[in-house]
């Protein structure tokens, strides 16, 4: 029996690794700038094989300028498909659990099996990065993708990184078992439709956290609501589990499910439903992505709408969308100054035991004061994030 399995592609920044069984370890490397890079690539391949305890295999690599973690992931994926009993590599990464309420103005999506689009994903200042194993990954690449994501998580330092797994009914359990080894800050569940969906995911996460010795509760959950069922059950989804820190809206699937055309009007009910459900459970709400990457004005307009509806952030499908999204969701200098004034006046009034306060003859009631405090808190957190 001579099985041959391949992982990775010959696209830029990828490395295609083909494994066949052999009587000893043979490594062959094809690469541009071969004189310069062959030795390094060979080391990565040999070390990965050794970690997986594979001693008999022929490994062919065609490198297109891949980073080390990509090569290691491709080798692991190909070796494990030839030798299915091989145990998955533990990445040994440690990560500080993320806080529930930290600013999440942007969620940057990145396709989980495309090394070229993953290069530099940490460089664009996204509040959260979402590595996708679902829609952007075709079924034949699911296994390689989750291994690649695991290796990326173990190598690339990101302020907050989530993995969008497949639904638990398809590849989701395998996704979880693999990527939790590298301890993402959170797991993003697509097509969430009920509290049971969240419970099921949470139970699975608890089981794997225990198995891997991860502190229980450190992995957050982000349901994506993108179906009619999901919208109608938004409240219970948000309230289902304390791990749910943020809920996201997926407009493309939602309008398809409804048979509706995507307009701001057709999305209004869903958006408002999500925001109200989220806020009722002290969960953040993140708006759907804006898919026309060339139309920055449209992006800004839609982001402002989302902000005004109560969303805390918005999805981005390219790093170019991050700056405009952040600009909309960050309090302006004027807003911060105004909020400082309100809070100061309120504090002074409180000290003097005065109940009702006013600025320039305008009454400052409780909700206004609360909003001012929220603005200052966000501003403070953003400054903190940027100086990290």
């Amino acid at each position: 029996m001579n099985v041959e399995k391949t992982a990775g592609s010959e696209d830029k920044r990828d490395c295609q690794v083909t494994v066949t069984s052999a009587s000893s370890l043979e490594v062959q490397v094809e690469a541009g700038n071969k004189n310069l890079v062959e030795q390094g690539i060979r080391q990565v391949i040999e070390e990965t094989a050794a970690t997986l305890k594979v001693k008999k295999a022929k490994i062919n690599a065609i490198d297109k300028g891949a980073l080390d973690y990509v090569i290691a992931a491709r080798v692991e994926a190909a070796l494990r498909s030839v030798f299915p009993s091989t145990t998955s590599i533990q990445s040994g990464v440690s990560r500080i659990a993320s806080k529930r309420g930290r600013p999440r103005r942007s969620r940057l999506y990145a396709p989980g099996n495309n090394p070229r689009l993953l290069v530099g994903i940490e460089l664009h200042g996204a509040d959260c990065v979402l590595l996708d194993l679902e829609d952007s990954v075709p079924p034949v690449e699911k296994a390689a993708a989750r291994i690649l994501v695991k290796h990326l998580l173990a190598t690339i330092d990101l302020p907050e990184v989530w993995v969008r797994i497949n639904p638990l009914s398809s590849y989701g359990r395998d996704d979880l078992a693999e990527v939790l080894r590298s301890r993402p800050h959170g797991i993003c569940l697509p097509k969430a439709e009920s509290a049971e969906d969240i419970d099921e995911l949470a139970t699975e996460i608890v089981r794997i956290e225990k198995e891997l010795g991860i502190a229980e509760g450190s992995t957050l959950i982000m349901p994506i609501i993108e179906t009619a069922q999901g919208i109608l059950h938004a409240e219970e989804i948000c309230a289902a589990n304390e791990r749910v820190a943020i809920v996201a809206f997926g407009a493309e699937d939602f309008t398809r499910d409804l048979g509706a055309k995507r307009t701001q009007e057709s999305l209004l009910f869903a958006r408002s439903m999500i925001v109200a459900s989220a806020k009722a459970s002290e969960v953040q709400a993140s708006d759907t992505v804006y898919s026309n990457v060339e139309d920055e004005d449209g992006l800004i307009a839609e982001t402002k709408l989302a902000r005004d509806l109560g969303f805390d952030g918005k999805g981005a499908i390219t790093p170019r969308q991050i700056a405009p999204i952040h600009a909309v969701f960050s309090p302006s200098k004027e807003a911060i100054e105004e909020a400082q004034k309100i809070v100061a006046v309120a504090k002074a009034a409180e000290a003097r035991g005065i109940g009702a306060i006013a600025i320039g003859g305008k009454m400052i009631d409780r909700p206004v004061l609360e909003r001012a405090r929220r603005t200052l808190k966000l501003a403070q957190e953003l400054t903190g994030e940027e100086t990290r």
Partner: protein
Amino acid sequence: MKNALGREIPERIGKRKLRPFKGAFATTPTAQKAPRPQKTVKPGENKVLSSIEEAIEATGLSDGMTISFHHSFRNGDLLVNQVLDTCARMGLKDLRLFPTALFPVHEPLIEHIKNGVVTRIEGSMNGPVGAFVSQGGKLKAPAVLRSHGGRWRVVEAGDIKIDVAFIAAPQADPYGNANGIKGKTPCGPITFCTVDAMYAEKTVVVTNNLVPYPAYPFEIQQGWTDYIVVVDEIGDPESIASGTLMITRSPTRLKIARLASEAVRASGYLVDGFNFQGGAGGISLAATKFVGEEMAKLGIVGGFAMGGGTRLLVDILHQGLVRVILDGQAFDTAAIESLREDQNHVIMDPGQYANYDSRGCSTYMLDAAFLGATEVDLDFNVNVNTHSDGQLLHGIGGHQDVASGAKMTVITIPTLRGRLPVIVDSVTTVTTPGEVIDVVVTERGIAVNPRRKDLKDRFLAAGLPVRELKEIKQEADRLTRPPRKPIFGDEVIALIEWRDGTVIDSVRKVIGWE
């Protein structure tokens, strides 16, 4: 011997005693400019010849002589190959080639080197010729690479005597006036070789477009031109852009460009009268675009923008963001058209903008410039000439001249190209010394040369991500195993001259791998 940067260079090459690099502005010329034989053409004399072959005969070109060319057609040049094929057919041997630059289109030159038609090259070699020469043992003497200004200087100083200059001219008249911006196949200014036309023993203008007297502007003047030859084709204008003109779409590279423009804004130089060099590579082109947008936003009117001319610079001129563009070359048709039609788009030659031994260079008037690099090292030295495997890769272009002049020279580089680190401990070859590099902008932050604490303070005050070059390097190095390093032998493949004619580095043959 070792030069001021500690680079090992030969004492002499043949009869030429080499002068080691001492510093960016350390030398002072003492000699007179080179002479050129006087000659009188009397009224009624014919200067038009019918073929390249006839021109070769008329000029008396013979074995061992030096011939020169310009590269304004870049990878679309058809003249170098035509002339060398003709020389080969006529049995000429042992020629020294002195082009402003060679490109992949000149691959047939390899045969002429093998057959001994060409035995020496002084000029940059982009592509297959560079790779071939890098194998060693191909030429009778090491190649010599010079900047635009350095090449002008060496001709003017008489250290290179050109026997015959062949000048591809998109438009010429029967008396030898010629230009590069008109005709059927315009390529932009052909002023790289103005100095060749002025100092060569014989100057031959080769055109595919002979027009009635006078052809103007007078980039090449009748008083310098011995002969005019009309041929079918001199260049393919479709190829002159050679793919350099796409603004990058890579988020990483756009981030570098954005940071570079923010560095310019924070530098204090971005005020009315701001003069800058616009780049033509992907990152510098984007940086130039962002700086233009910044100027528009701030309501700043710059002084001049220096090319290579591009559509982008022309747009910046038309928007009134600069008063004038100064161009020694043009990278696209929009720039060429603008040179024809807009008197605020001005042609200049390297003697004007880049010559060290002169009474002033336009590059010295620059506030900011964006330049690329193959490698940058922790001393801020830049390599644009060789690949990390030691192979000759690119010419110097105006890199040294611009970096020496601009008040703020910004190197825009990604930290990795594929698996290869761009920031290294010590560059494979020094093209431009760290003392004239002010800022290195990468996707992982901005590094400022310790000599420019003033800039560092300004960048920090503006909240820019200023980091040590070493720290940026370490962060990138974590992503790939280090590449192997070549081991260099004794054979010198090429000399890299500094603008003043001193030798800043030598390129040696690779004999193995560490």
